[in-house]
């Protein structure tokens, strides 16, 4: 068993004994991340890219160092391909609107999947409406995996973009993105990956993924809220219009016209999340000091234990893959006769924090034939005791509701 228990001291929020199993929604922040932001704000803060004075130079350097750190972390060869956004949602909106409005037209098809988070679905719906493109979806198989045969059959010359989650936030499924990217490119389509759940939990190399755009959030990977990343392959970014207008993203402005600054600045209108970039930098340092492979291993081990023990709990059904093949540390479950929301309340009474609901994936819920699930998700600070607490809480729920 991969032992990461030495990390727990870095997460004071867990001191009161909460079994925090909702990192899929957002992770906790370790002290080194909080301290890095605090220290920066106390010693080196000023607006970036704007001042010729020392504090501004220091602040700009810290901000750009964060960009380089992110590039390095995801295997990007050119740091200009890293754009700081507000979060994965804004990253995906930037692609949908910035790339989509420019490059999609009536008759084109956008190919998504049935297991997308609303963040990778609603923006494409909006863009489809404005461009006249149609939005098509690859279904999932009975065991909660992407139906690759249907995906292949749905590809065609009219498909201009394929967009897929890197890891389902409901089922934990990890689709074969490199394979999908290869297929997409073979048909001349751009490949977008919603990596909000993938980047925090596995070692990601954007070139190995084969994607054109990759989106993720800081707050799910031990970093602060308020910042996320859009990585784009340079030629894909060159096809993309800015999503927002404002300061710092222009080369010149007259009263009626503006020309854009270079990439990445043209995509970063206004004052960026500067302190948050420093925090994200520290979070990546922290993750790397543990080792992404070790984190993945640790999550896998906990997931395997959870899956094994949950089947013994009366009434429990796992939604999504029940084996360990190509899946991450997200486990969705339902209990016969007990609504997920009631499960969450009962678990909370025992200090077990899980999420209940549709997990911003309503179409997937409909396809699974459920209205809500209770979801446990694992991260670096979790341990087997959290699963013990989960299982005993679920049993208690079964008792209260008379499930047997």
């Amino acid at each position, binding site marked *: 068993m991969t032992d990461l228990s030495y990390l727990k001291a870095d997460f004071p929020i867990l001191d009161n004994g909460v079994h925090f199993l909702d990192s899929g929604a957002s992770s906790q922040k370790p002290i080194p991340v909080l301290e890095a932001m605090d220290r920066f704000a106390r010693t080196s803060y000023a607006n970036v890219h704007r001042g010729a004075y020392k504090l501004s130079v220091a602040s700009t350097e810290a901000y750009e160092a964060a960009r380089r750190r992110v590039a390095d972390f995801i295997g990007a060869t050119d740091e200009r391909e890293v754009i700081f956004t507000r979060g994965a949602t804004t990253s995906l909106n930037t692609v949908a609107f910035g790339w989509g409005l420019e490059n999609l037209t009536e008759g084109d098809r956008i190919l998504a999947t049935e297991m997308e988070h609303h963040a990778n679905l609603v923006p494409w719906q909006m863009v489809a409406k404005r461009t006249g493109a149609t939005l098509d979806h690859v279904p999932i198989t009975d065991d909660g995996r992407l139906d690759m045969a249907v995906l292949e059959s749905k590809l065609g010359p009219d498909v201009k973009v394929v967009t897929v989650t890197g890891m389902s936030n409901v089922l934990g499924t990890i689709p074969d993105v490199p394979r999908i990217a290869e297929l997409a490119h073979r048909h001349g389509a751009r490949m977008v990956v919603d990596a909000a759940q993938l980047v925090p939990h596995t070692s990601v190399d954007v070139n190995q993924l084969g994607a054109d755009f990759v989106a993720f959030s800081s707050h799910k990977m031990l970093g602060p809220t308020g910042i996320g990343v859009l990585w784009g392959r340079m030629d894909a970014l060159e096809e993309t219009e800015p999503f927002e207008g404002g300061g710092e993203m222009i080369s010149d402005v007259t009263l009626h016209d503006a020309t854009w600054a270079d990439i990445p600045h043209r995509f970063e209108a206004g004052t960026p999340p500067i302190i948050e970039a420093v925090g994200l930098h520290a979070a990546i340092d922290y993750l790397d000091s543990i080792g992404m492979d070790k984190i993945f291993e640790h999550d896998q081990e906990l997931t395997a234990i959870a899956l094994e023990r949950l089947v013994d709990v009366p009434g429990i059904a796992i939604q999504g893959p029940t084996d360990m093949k190509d899946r991450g540390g997200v486990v969705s479950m339902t209990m016969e006769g007990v*609504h*997920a*929301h*009631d499960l969450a*309340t*009962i678990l909370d009474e025992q200090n077990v924090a899980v999420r*209940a*609901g549709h997990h911003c994936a309503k179409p997937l819920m409909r396809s699974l034939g459920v209205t*809500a699930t209770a979801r446990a998700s694992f991260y670096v600070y979790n341990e087997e005791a959290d699963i013990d607490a989960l299982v005993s809480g679920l049993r208690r729920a079964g008792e*209260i509701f008379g499930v047997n």
Partner: protein
Amino acid sequence: MGLEELYREVILDHYRNPRNQGHLEHPQASAQGVNPLCGDEITIEVSFDGDKVSEVAVDGQGCSISQSSASMMTEAIKGKSRKEINKLVGRFRQMMSLDEGDDLGLDPERPGAVLGDIEALQGVRQYPVRIKCASLGWNTLLEALDA
């Protein structure tokens, strides 16, 4: 206090065997309610005989609190006038600490005493996120009556 207070037997009973489930043939008023955060959904349909509710049906899905609350509500409003229903809703909201005001003359110790079975829901007050579940059916009823 605790889960026993929340999940009283009468609540579980209404959850398992919801009353007035389904749809009316010719509803005179109806409304749909959703709680976008947890996905609970409810449809309420009402028919009147003069000013009084003659028939009511509820359809939907959700947690034990939202479904049992709606089920108990349907029993409570049958045969009642709009004015009586408004008063009932007011008492319910007060029990849930959603409204203040003492003009209803409720016992502060046991504000739900006048509500019969529905009083069982007062344990929900200890679970603020669940108050929205308990009130979903009631808010939807108000919408149906206002429409």
